[in-house]
């Protein structure tokens, strides 16, 4: 599974990066790599079964807090 994941990410990198390098889009390349690495780390954590904090739970708490303020 992990191998598959790595292969997929390498595939995506190969898909996008060469064109960016060729056109010298360094800024875009940085942004791309940043997002890709973030995605990779999150995906890896998920595959490994590490609990990642759920942002939606945070939203829920926030909304409930505001609702309690209202009433």
């Amino acid at each position, binding site marked *: 599974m992990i191998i598959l994941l790595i292969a997929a990410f390498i595939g995506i990198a190969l898909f996008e990066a060469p064109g960016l390098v060729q056109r010298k889009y360094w800024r875009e390349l940085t*942004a791309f790599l940043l997002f890709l690495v973030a995605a990779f780390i999150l*995906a890896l954590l998920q595959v490994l079964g590490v609990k990642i904090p759920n942002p939606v739970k945070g939203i829920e708490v926030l909304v409930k807090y505001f*609702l309690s303020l209202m009433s």
Partner: protein
Amino acid sequence: MLEKGKISSSQLTFLIAGFTLGSSLILSPGLVAGHDAWLAVLAGLGSSLLIAFIYTTLAVKFPGKTLVQINDIIFGPYLGKLITIGYLWYFFHLASLVLRNFSDFFVGLIYPETPIIVFLIFITLTCASAVRNGIEVIARTSIILLFVTACATFLTTVLLVKDMEFTNLLPVLDLPLKQFIKASYAATTFPFGETVVFLMVIAFLENTKQAKPSVTLGLILAGILLVVASVRNISVLGVTEPIHTYDSYQAVRLINIGEILTRLEIIVVGNFLAMGFLKISVLYYGTVLGTAQLLNLRSYLPLVLPIGILMVILSILQFESTIENIHFAFDIYPYYVIPFQFGIPLFSLIVAVVRGLPKKAKEGSK
């Protein structure tokens, strides 16, 4: 320019209609109102036309500018960026929400043994390829897909006429006003209010002045289809409607004309997916384009796949079960969207009018 394509006003209409139908064909809006859901949808449509007026006024005031640029102009570079990040999160979250809904639909009903990730990946890949091709291509597909969906909705309705009990719609407005308002409000926020993402798209309209009529027309078109679907479901399913997870699907399963025209649900499933594809694509596009504009990139293409993967991850992460999903949809979502769908657009408009901004806009954007 990040996006070279231009869309015509009729394409915008179809795109909005398709977007609005999106996931509301599987998850019927206004369910809280029971057999008055269709009225809640109508009410939601009415109020959403007002909100859409705010959006389009904003868009027309700043022709050729997307939400990200508008925010920058109105709120200045720092606060504007902050608000933009908020919106980008909202689009991103909404896209992954819809993605999750559709994948759940497939896993729950048709492929119970298949892991959800398969559907997430394939739907995301499809949307990614559309997003990479730009808004023009998404708009072009929307025409054909919407046409097919409209046909399928009417076809299934006609085939179900035999099973319809229109007395199921009676008595009209048989519920406390408060509950009805709540249902209508829910219908406003889902699906109609979600058109706020089109502030990212209207900028590419060939003739910005056409924005208002085409957005209105699109919403009305979707509203009509939703009311038709809602009336169909209620009159066919009657009292049993509220217990179903996916009432449209259940209604269509009851089609049986002489044992020949029966078991048609796959057609409907295809349509659902097509509409979901449109909705996710537009949201996905909004997220990616907005991020590229926020980071001041020259091309949004490299962001498409990484953000898609993040979307898939969030889809898996956000709910552990459909029950959590339903809880979120009914109890949290209607309040969560207040700032995005009503608060900020209204506030932006007020600020823009007070500061007389469209004139300054030219200087601001250099």
